[in-house]
């Protein structure tokens, strides 16, 4: 799990161009949207691409992302349960 969490953070930092932020800066349970990293709706779509590209999970409906993308932990749990690669 810890390995997956680190990998997820690296993918997110890379895809969202979170310059000057390291994996250690991201709290596993802090909200990603709103206060936390201040991500917006385009970033949410970018997270959908990460799920598809690295874990073979296809989210057809972006609305499903809301619950999944709450925090790094919720994403990791979802990946563990649904990954196809």
């Amino acid at each position, binding site marked *: 799990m810890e390995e997956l969490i680190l990998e997820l953070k690296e993918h997110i930092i890379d*895809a*969202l*161009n*979170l*310059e*000057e932020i390291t994996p250690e800066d991201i709290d596993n349970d802090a909200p990603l949207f709103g206060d936390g990293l*201040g991500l*917006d*709706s*385009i*970033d949410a*779509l*970018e997270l*959908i*691409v990460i799920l*598809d*590209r690295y874990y073979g999970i296809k989210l*057809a*409906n*972006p609305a499903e992302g809301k619950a999944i993308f709450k925090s790094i932990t919720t994403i990791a749990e979802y990946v563990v349960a649904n990954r196809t690669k």
Partner: protein
Amino acid sequence: MISVLATNIVSPLGYTTDENYRAVREHRSKLARYESWRGVPEAFVASVFDEKQRSELMIEGYTILESVAIRSIADALAGCRIDVHSPRTKFILSTTKANVDELSSCAEHDANYIAPGALARKVAAYFGFKSEPVVVCNACISGMDAQLLAHRLLSSGEYDHAVVCGVDMVTPFVIAGFLSFKSMSLDECRPFDIERTGLNVGEAAATIIFGRNVDDDTPRWQLLSGAMSNDAYHLSAPAPKGDGAYRAMCSALGSYDANLLALISTHGTATMFNDQMESKAIERANLLAVPITALKGYYGHTLGAAGVVEPIINMRSLDDGLVLGVRGFDELGVSAKVDVSAKERSTDKQSFLKMISGFGGCNGALLYAKQRGEHTPTIERHKLNTRHRVVITPEKVVVDSDELNVSVSGKALLTEIYKNHIGDYPKYYKMDALSKVLFVASELLMQRFCCECEGKRSSMIIFNSSSSIVSDRKHIATFERSDEFYPSPSIFIGTLPNIALGEFAIKHNCTGETSLYILESRSDALMAEVVESAMSQSDTDIMLTGWVDCSSEDSFEAELVILTK
């Protein structure tokens, strides 16, 4: 008075305005579902030319996009008598992605050959247009923006005629982009319907030829006025209450009696957000009693052509006293009770409002009426005051007469300036290459000026020649291989060069117009003509304008000024 002299639409529904109008009246559409189309591994619905049509339309030595544009312009020119060789005839091309489909197969050094400016020159040369063409590349509102530009240039007396052609093709490039935004419907789109699930894309070219102070007594369609306004809200999502759309509509309508409107021609893309936002804007403008139309259920979203195709169909239907039915509509699914119907209705009114909105937060509206023309005097161009100027090259940054200290060059120079002189805006790192150049240039200007902005209406008109070539190449790399098909929404959005202006609008709450125009090469005289006519004929107080070009991450040039009246 700016009159419509001739029109044409070349689409999968036909090659003339009348063929298209007949198809729409008969509720026909070429929308169809495609699976594994040109290597796109996901299904989508689009309106595209079939093989037979492509071979009929193709002109040897030209791309399919060029061929379709040329056929559209040729048919419109055949419908009126104007002197194409006169320097007083302007050619304006509206396109979001021009020949981008050729980019993936072309060598690095050929990129200029397929650039939007080169496309416009090639089409202009086919007909022998003498004046320098302008390409309007303002996302989905390009077709509307191009007509407003024509209106301004004609009104200022510089030209007698303007030929406005909007054209875009369905390509893996745009399909991949819209797929990454999850905004495409897997069924035929359903504008304003409760079960709408997104948009379809379509391809078309459409042409309107405008003339100024045309002498005759017969009532003709006139483009009375138009306006643009940025939401200053989000790069891809419209302001929920349609702020910019509402402002653009009110400005375009001015003191015109809304009781005379036969219809409002909506953008009606059938995405959840767009249709809802438009309904709110119509409600806020007190126009709920006016019937609305939406044509995407016939054509799909034809991108840079949409703002030209749709008013042509509206004009043609009102010639017959009809408000056309909305294909795909059944039950109202927006919160403001707009007057929409699947069936055609009759009307004796002869004017309408066209609404349109696009990525980058831009919105526009045009007002058309069929009436006898009145001669109108030319609107003199204001002489403008240049308040501040910034010049950026990969080696140097100069603000007014002060050269800033820099220790690096190229892309790193921009980041150094950001860190040392701007800072505190982490979104900077997410921006595409062109947006970064414009961001740094405009921030340096605003630092010297912002105290004077209070309560003023600001606009931005940017010119370049490379469009969004850096992002275009990046985006292509995300979908080229169908087994590695992962288009990225944040890269795709950068392939609309006007996004750079949207960033500025959001940061500075700039609610005036934001336009991006492409020229084959920099022409200060033409840029002044465009900007001065825009300032003279709108309520803009402050204009940020100039040349901002970025041909690779490390090669860019910007010369940006702040102008006041």
